[in-house]
C-alpha cells in the first residue's frame, strides 16, 4: 500500500505542468491513469485499504461534537459508561449480523431469535423449575438451531436471505408469543428462581465508570470473532463467499456448507446476547427488542461493512454500535426530542452507505 502511494506521489511530481513537455514523457496509459490521481483519490484509496477508519473518525467527531453541544454532562464517567451499557445488546446482535452481511446476506430475524432464546432460558428455569444452566444450554441450542434453519433455507431453497429472514422473523416472533402467551417473566421471579440469568447485568465500578459484566462479554465476543475472521481459514472463507461466491466455490470452498455454519455461528452469538439481555432488561419480555433487527443492521452499516458482502471489519461494527449510542445519548442530553435522534440516525445511515459506495469505486 505504502509502496503504491509512494509511487503515486513520485509520479505526481513527475507529471508535466500543462502540456509543455509532454512529448518526452513516458506516454503509456499507466502514467495517464496516475496523472488523474488527486488528493481525493488518495483518500479514497486509503479508506479502501483501511475500512475501519471511517467509523473511528465519525465516532471521535461525534464525541467531540456532543461534548460541545451537551456539555460536561456528556463527558461524565457515568454517562460514557452508560452508553457502553446501552449498546451492549445491539452490539452483540451487530456482531452476529456482521457475519451474515459479510457473506452478502442480511438477517432480519436476529432480534426475534434472541428473544426466542431468552424465552427458553427464562421459561424453563423460572416456570418449569429446571436448573438454570441446562435452561441456558437449551436457549443456546435454540439460537444455533434457528440460525442454522435460516442458513438451510438460504442454501437449500436458494432464496434470498432478505426473504428467508423476513419470514423467519415473523415465525420466531409468533413462537415467542406462543410460548409466553404474551406474558413477561418478571424480574423478581427470575431473581428468586434463576439469579444466574441476571449474571451479565451485574455492575462493576471502575473509578466512576460503571460497567456491566455484559459489556465486557460484548468486547470479548468482538475480539473472539476478530480472531475467527482474520486468523482462521473459516474466517477467510466468510470473506471469499461474500466477495464472489462462484469464485469461492471454484476455489474448492463448499459454500453451502460454509453458509449454514456461518448462520449457525451467528445464531450462537445471538443466543449469548439472549442471556446478556435478561441481565440488562431484568425481565424476559416477548415484545422487547422489536427494533433490534434494524438497529443491528444500522450498526453494521455505519461500521463500514458493505451490504454487498466481502468487505468490512468486525471491529467496525463495534464502533458502529457505539456511534449509535453516542448519538442517542448526546441528543437526549442536549434536550432534543427523540424524533431528532431518529432523524440524525437516518442521515448517518445514508451517509455511511454513500461513503461505502464511493470507496468501492476504487476497485474498478
Amino acid at each position, binding site marked *: *500500500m505504502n*509502496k*503504491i502511494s509512494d509511487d503515486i506521489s513520485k509520479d505526481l511530481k513527475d507529471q508535466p505542468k500543462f502540456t509543455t513537455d509532454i512529448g518526452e514523457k513516458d506516454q*503509456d*496509459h499507466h502514467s495517464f491513469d496516475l496523472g488523474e490521481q488527486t488528493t481525493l483519490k488518495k483518500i479514497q484509496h486509503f479508506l479502501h*485499504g483501511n475500512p475501519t477508519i471511517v467509523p473511528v473518525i465519525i465516532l471521535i467527531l461525534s464525541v467531540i461534537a456532543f461534548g460541545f453541544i451537551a456539555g460536561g454532562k456528556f463527558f461524565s464517567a457515568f454517562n460514557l459508561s452508560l452508553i457502553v451499557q446501552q449498546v451492549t445488546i445491539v452490539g452483540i446482535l451487530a456482531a452476529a449480523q456482521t457475519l451474515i452481511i459479510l457473506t452478502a446476506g442480511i438477517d432480519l430475524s436476529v432480534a426475534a431469535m434472541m428473544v426466542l432464546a431468552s424465552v427458553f432460558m427464562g421459561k424453563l428455569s423460572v416456570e418449569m423449575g429446571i436448573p438454570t444452566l441446562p435452561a441456558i444450554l437449551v436457549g443456546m441450542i435454540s439460537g444455533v438451531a434457528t440460525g442454522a434453519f435460516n442458513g438451510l433455507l438460504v442454501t437449500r431453497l436458494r432464496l434470498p436471505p432478505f426473504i428467508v429472514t423476513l419470514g423467519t422473523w415473523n415465525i420466531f416472533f409468533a413462537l415467542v408469543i406462543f410460548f409466553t402467551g404474551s406474558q413477561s417473566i418478571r424480574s423478581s421471579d427470575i431473581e428468586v428462581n434463576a439469579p444466574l440469568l441476571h449474571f451479565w447485568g451485574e455492575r462493576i465500578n471502575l473509578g466512576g465508570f460503571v460497567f456491566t459484566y455484559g459489556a465486557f462479554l460484548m468486547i470479548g465476543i468482538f475480539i473472539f470473532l476478530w*480472531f475467527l475472521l482474520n*486468523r*482462521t*481459514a*473459516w474466517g*477467510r*472463507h466468510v*470473506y*471469499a463467499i461474500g*466477495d*464472489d461466491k*462462484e*469464485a*469461492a466455490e*471454484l*476455489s*474448492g*470452498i463448499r459454500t453451502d456448507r460454509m453458509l449454514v455454519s456461518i448462520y449457525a455461528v451467528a445464531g450462537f452469538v445471538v443466543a449469548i446476547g439472549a442471556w446478556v439481555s435478561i441481565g440488562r432488561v431484568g425481565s424476559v419480555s416477548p415484545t422487547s427488542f422489536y427494533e433490534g433487527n434494524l438497529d443491528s443492521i444500522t450498526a453494521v452499516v455505519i461500521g463500514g461493512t458493505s451490504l454487498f458482502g*466481502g*468487505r468490512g471489519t468486525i471491529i467496525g461494527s463495534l464502533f458502529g454500535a457505539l456511534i449509535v449510542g453516542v448519538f442517542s445519548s448526546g441528543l437526549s442530553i442536549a434536550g432534543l426530542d427523540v424524533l431528532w435522534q431518529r432523524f440524525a440516525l437516518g442521515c448517518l445511515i445514508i451517509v455511511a452507505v454513500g461513503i461505502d459506495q464511493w470507496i468501492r469505486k*476504487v*476497485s474498478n
Partner: protein
Amino acid sequence: MDPVLVAKKLSKKYGKVVALDNADLELYPGEVLGVIGDNGAGKSTLIKALCGAVIPDSGEIQLDGNKVSFTSPIEARKLGIETVYQNLALSPALSITDNMFLGREIRQKGFMGKFLKFLDQKAMAEEARKRLSDLGLLTIQNINQLVETLSGGQRQGVAVARATSFGTKVVIMDEPTAALGVKESRRVLELIGEVRARGIPIILISHNMPHVFEVADRIHVHRLGTRLCVIDPKKYEMSDAVAFMTGAKEPPLN
C-alpha cells in the same frame, strides 16, 4: 510417448442441442495444446467436461492412463487437473496469499493450529512468494496486497501461480488474454512458456489466433461438437486454421 490426458468419444446433449458429438482430445506431456473453434462449436463444453464443470452423457476421460470421472471442478482439481477460468475465480477483496491458498490453507503446527485452527500466515506468504518468483512474477512486491489492487495481467499471474502450485498434472487455461492489453497479454504468453518449461502440459482455449499460433505446439480444431483435425502451427497459416474452423476448407487427414 503416452498422453497425460485423453478424452474419448465424449458426448453431451442439452435437450435437442448436441454440444459434444463423440469428441476426442489428447494432451501429451510438456506440450501446449491450443483449442480453437467457432462460437458454438462446443469447445467450451469440451473444456468444462475436462475440468469437471459439466458431466458428459457418454464417453470417458483418462488421466495418466487411468479412467477418471468427476462431478465437480473440485474433484477434478484433486486429481491434478487445474483450471484457470476466464473470470479467474479470485476473490478481489482478499490478499494474494489468501487467494493462492483459498480452500487449501496451511494451519499452524501444534495446539494453535490443531485446536484453534489458526493459520500459518508466515508459511503461506513465503510459499506464495516462492511460487510467484518461480514463475518470474517478481514485479509483485507485497504478497499481502489485495488482489483488486493488481492489474489484469498480475491477477492472471496469481491465478496461474495458484493453478500450478499443488501437484498439478494438467493446466487448462480459458481465454487467458481475452481481457488484457497488448503488454499484459505478452506477459501472460511468457507465463504459459514458464509453466511449460516446468513440465506441466497446458490446454489453451483462445479466440486470439496470433496468440494460439505463437505458443501452441499443436492446435486442436473443434467444429460441430467434435474434433475436426489437429494441426501443426508451423505447417499451416492462421488463415488455414480459420478456414478449417468455419468449414470453408477441407481439413487435412491426420
